[in-house]
């Protein structure tokens, strides 16, 4: 079974600073996808960034980037130049490449951004 662990229930960051959210996962598969989703108070889950396991290059999306360490099964999210609108719950998720329906989520990290 694949499990996703987010060891930081809560994190805070000063506006304009950088914060890193941790995620580890457990799998015996070699080909899979990893995602970070954001859930603001509106409750809608929004895809932030995604990574294909076979790509060594870390994904980046504007101020969001990941540090993907496949051997360590680690997938951290770095948010640069944090903005007040980044405040939300962040969920790390895993999905096997051949299995679209079984997305496994971590318990989430609540990020607070201080002005």
């Amino acid at each position, binding site marked *: 079974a694949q499990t996703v662990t987010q060891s930081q229930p809560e994190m805070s960051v000063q506006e304009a600073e950088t914060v890193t959210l941790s995620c580890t996962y457990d799998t015996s598969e070699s080909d899979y996808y990893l*995602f970070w*989703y954001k859930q603001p108070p509106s*409750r809608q889950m929004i*895809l932030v960034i*995604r990574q294909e396991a076979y790509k060594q290059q870390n994904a980046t999306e504007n101020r969001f980037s990941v540090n993907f360490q496949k051997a360590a099964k680690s997938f951290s999210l770095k948010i640069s130049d944090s903005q007040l609108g980044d405040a939300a719950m962040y*969920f790390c998720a895993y999905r096997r490449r051949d299995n*679209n329906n079984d997305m*496994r*989520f971590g318990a989430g990290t609540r990020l607070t951004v201080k002005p």
Partner: protein
Amino acid sequence: EAGVTQSPTHLIKTRGQQATLRCSPISGHTSVYWYQQALGLGLQFLLWYDEGEERNRGNFPPRFSGRQFPNYSSELNVNALELEDSALYLCASSRIPGQYSYNSPLHFGNGTRLTVT
């Protein structure tokens, strides 16, 4: 494009009753997924529907069921409600089910907050 819509926003039921939650996917999306988000827990996969059929279900009892209509909208039914069913229920849709779905991530609705008293 309109996003995934869920109704109702909030639902309050008493133990033993039945709850019905509704979801309309993004236009053109054929797959609908249901997740339960209990307080302090991550999202737990409930059900996956595609083209009107249940394709897979998570580790939930049979009193959690649903269906998908010809217009791809979906209902989640929870029978014999228990207190621990209180949670946020999220619906998601995607355009392409199956293998080559990397470029078709899940799009989530705002959820239905179910409270069982």
